[in-house]
């Protein structure tokens, strides 16, 4: 894993000192809120309904155990004993006092963490595949180029005041677990006919009030030239992106209004200029230096099968269910990827207590080669667990309500904080997620329904990714009362699609029944083992709409 060098340490330390002074000047009255707001946002500090909220960056969703322990410590000392893992692989704290945040950031820095690039109109924290370095299908660990992008983008003077925020995601293979086509820039690691590793680049994806799937800009950029290509995209956006209307300022609007071909031409022209200068050609020794941080950990040579693992599934039906739903094959013989669902039945999606974070840190240290991952679906992952150890890990998780065997199932929902916390929300998201998970609590029923991704947002900003849910739910406000609009057919994977709205919105009292109607329509009409999304794509909206509104 990447470790800070002297420059990283100095940069983060200087930033904390700078922010401490800004907070002191705000509290003393030397700065107005208009002056201070952009400064606090550049340090991840928002004002929400009940308190300030601090968003801490977790670059490409990767944590060491000591970092997870620090997150637990922050939750305990500066917050109310919990944190909320987000769809951008970050963590949010809901209750920090403004005047304590500089001390919080000081402590965070001791674990090589910060809140930079988690807010404001800059290039945000780079996200990636939670199975990076552990899954067999990747061409290259996507965290290598993610870290190179992080170093290029952090405090990049040309891109500190962009028209709007800018999000980049990277996947190591075409099987996309990072929702890259819903990002301003989505990057896919590719291999060309000569066997060289490079990158396919998609531009202009995003959600919010105007959702778009990203358009492919280029099939292949050589590894050493990717930063030059990204700089070209950013320059075109910085020059032509709208600054007169924040609703039209994202690059997705520019790509849509400019057209894919013209956008490609503009980017290629800019790329040619930057490339000719060679200023952004990444030296091979630097690529090698960063790659070394992500070299495979010290795996033991083990047999592919584990009798201990197999027998434990025979002896414990609940463990067998956990394996079926939450455990994924590892590229290394004798190891497994263990997913930790943060979606207990009736729980708050993405929330973890300080105690749970400490437990996960211990499990990572003792059983996962010191690594934890955060997923954009608001779960956690122990990426490198020996098959022989999976049962012990499961037992420890189960003792702390972390062993719900529902990954990818109907109760594994994404939900934004919604009106329970968020200043922008129109409706609550979390209670709805809780009611849905309780309605479908029976795991046998969940397995029968199969893969089904419900995503809930409390407003059109779509932090809960409702546009790309197989079933999306959007909370709307009608004269101070909550209503919920359903969309169907969205997808966030390599077949990314924007869902279509079914029709009029449902009341708070009716929405869970409506979701059940959608699900039973699917189970009545599916063919054999067809997934929900495949049934929807085969039959379209009509049968669902008919049952919802007749």
């Amino acid at each position, binding site marked *: 894993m990447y470790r800070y060098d002297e420059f990283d340490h100095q940069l983060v330390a200087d930033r904390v000192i700078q922010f401490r002074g800004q907070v002191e000047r*705000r*509290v003393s*009255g030397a700065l*107005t*809120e208009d002056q201070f707001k952009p400064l606090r946002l550049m340090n991840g500090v928002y*004002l*929400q*309904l*009940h*308190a*300030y909220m601090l968003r801490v960056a977790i670059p490409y969703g990767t944590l060491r155990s000591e970092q997870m322990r620090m997150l637990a410590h922050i939750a305990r000392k500066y917050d*109310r004993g919990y944190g909320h893992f987000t769809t951008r692989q970050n963590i949010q704290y809901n*209750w920090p*006092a*403004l*005047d304590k945040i500089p001390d919080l950031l000081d402590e965070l820095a001791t674990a090589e963490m910060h809140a930079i690039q988690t807010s404001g109109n800059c290039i945000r924290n780079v996200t990636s595949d939670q199975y990076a370095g552990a899954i067999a299908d990747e061409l290259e660990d996507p965290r290598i180029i993610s870290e190179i992008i992080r170093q290029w983008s952090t405090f990049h003077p040309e891109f500190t005041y962009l028209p709007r925020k800018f999000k980049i995601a990277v996947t190591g293979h075409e099987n996309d677990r990072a929702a890259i086509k819903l990002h301003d820039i989505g990057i896919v690691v590719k291999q060309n006919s000569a066997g060289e590793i490079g990158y396919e680049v998609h531009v202009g994806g995003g959600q919010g009030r105007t959702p778009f799937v990203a358009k492919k800009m280029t099939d292949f950029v050589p590894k050493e030239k990717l930063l030059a290509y990204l700089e070209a995209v950013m320059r075109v956006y910085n020059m032509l992106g709208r600054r007169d209307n924040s609703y039209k300022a994202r690059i997705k609007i520019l790509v849509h209004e400019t057209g894919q071909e013209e956008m490609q031409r503009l980017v290629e022209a800019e790329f040619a200029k930057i490339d000719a200068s060679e200023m952004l050609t990444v030296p091979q020794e630097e690529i090698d230096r960063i790659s070394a941080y992500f070299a495979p950990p010290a795996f033991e040579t083990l047999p592919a099968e584990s009798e201990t693992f197999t027998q434990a599934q025979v002896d414990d039906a609940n463990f067998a269910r956990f394996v079926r739903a939450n455990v994924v094959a590892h590229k290394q013989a004798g190891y497994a990827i263990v997913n930790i669902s943060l979606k207990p039945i009736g729980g*708050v999606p993405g929330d973890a207590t300080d105690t749970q974070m400490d437990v996960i840190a211990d499990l990572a240290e003792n059983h996962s080669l010191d690594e934890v991952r955060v997923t954009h679906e608001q779960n956690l992952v122990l990426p490198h667990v020996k098959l022989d150890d999976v049962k012990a890990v499961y037992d420890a998780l189960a003792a702390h309500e972390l062993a719900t065997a529902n990954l990818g199932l109907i109760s594994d929902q994404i939900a934004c904080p919604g*009106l*329970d*916390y968020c*200043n*922008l*929300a*129109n*409706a*609550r998201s*979390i*209670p709805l997620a*809780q009611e849905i998970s309780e309605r479908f609590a029976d795991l046998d029923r969940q397995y029968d329904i199969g893969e089904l991704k419900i995503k809930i947002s409390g407003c059109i900003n779509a932090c809960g990714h409702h546009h790309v849910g197989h079933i999306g739910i959007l909370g709307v*406000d009608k*004269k*101070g*009362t*909550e209503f919920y609009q359903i969309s169907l057919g969205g997808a966030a994977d390599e077949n990314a699609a924007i869902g279509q709205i079914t029709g009029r919105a449902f009341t708070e009292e009716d929405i869970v029944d409506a979701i059940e109607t959608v699900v039973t329509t699917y189970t009545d009409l599916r063919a054999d083992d067809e997934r929900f999304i495949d049934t929807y794509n085969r039959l379209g909206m009509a049968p669902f709409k008919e049952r919802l509104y007749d």
Partner: protein
Amino acid sequence: MAQHAAKGARFQAVTANRLSDGEVVYWSDDNRWVEGFTKAEIADGADAADALLARAMPADFEAHVLEPYLFEVLEDGSFYKPASVRETIRAAGPTVRLDLGKQAGA
């Protein structure tokens, strides 16, 4: 930011967030910011609401609070309550964590 000073609202109060910790506060009838909604001054009519907001925003208000605004309240017997779900949640705390927010100490 969504606000709920609905047109035609008869009763309104003023709320903000405290600068130091973001706590939800209300302008009270003894001309100070308080944490409890029950102590909020209620304005009857649009003119009274405008006057209330003006009193809550003296020249130095930014040294104490962020973004004061009017919101609609409704009569509830001999009491008042926020009209919107949003302001009800601000006055109490998250509906999914009854152990947190103002409701926790109630």
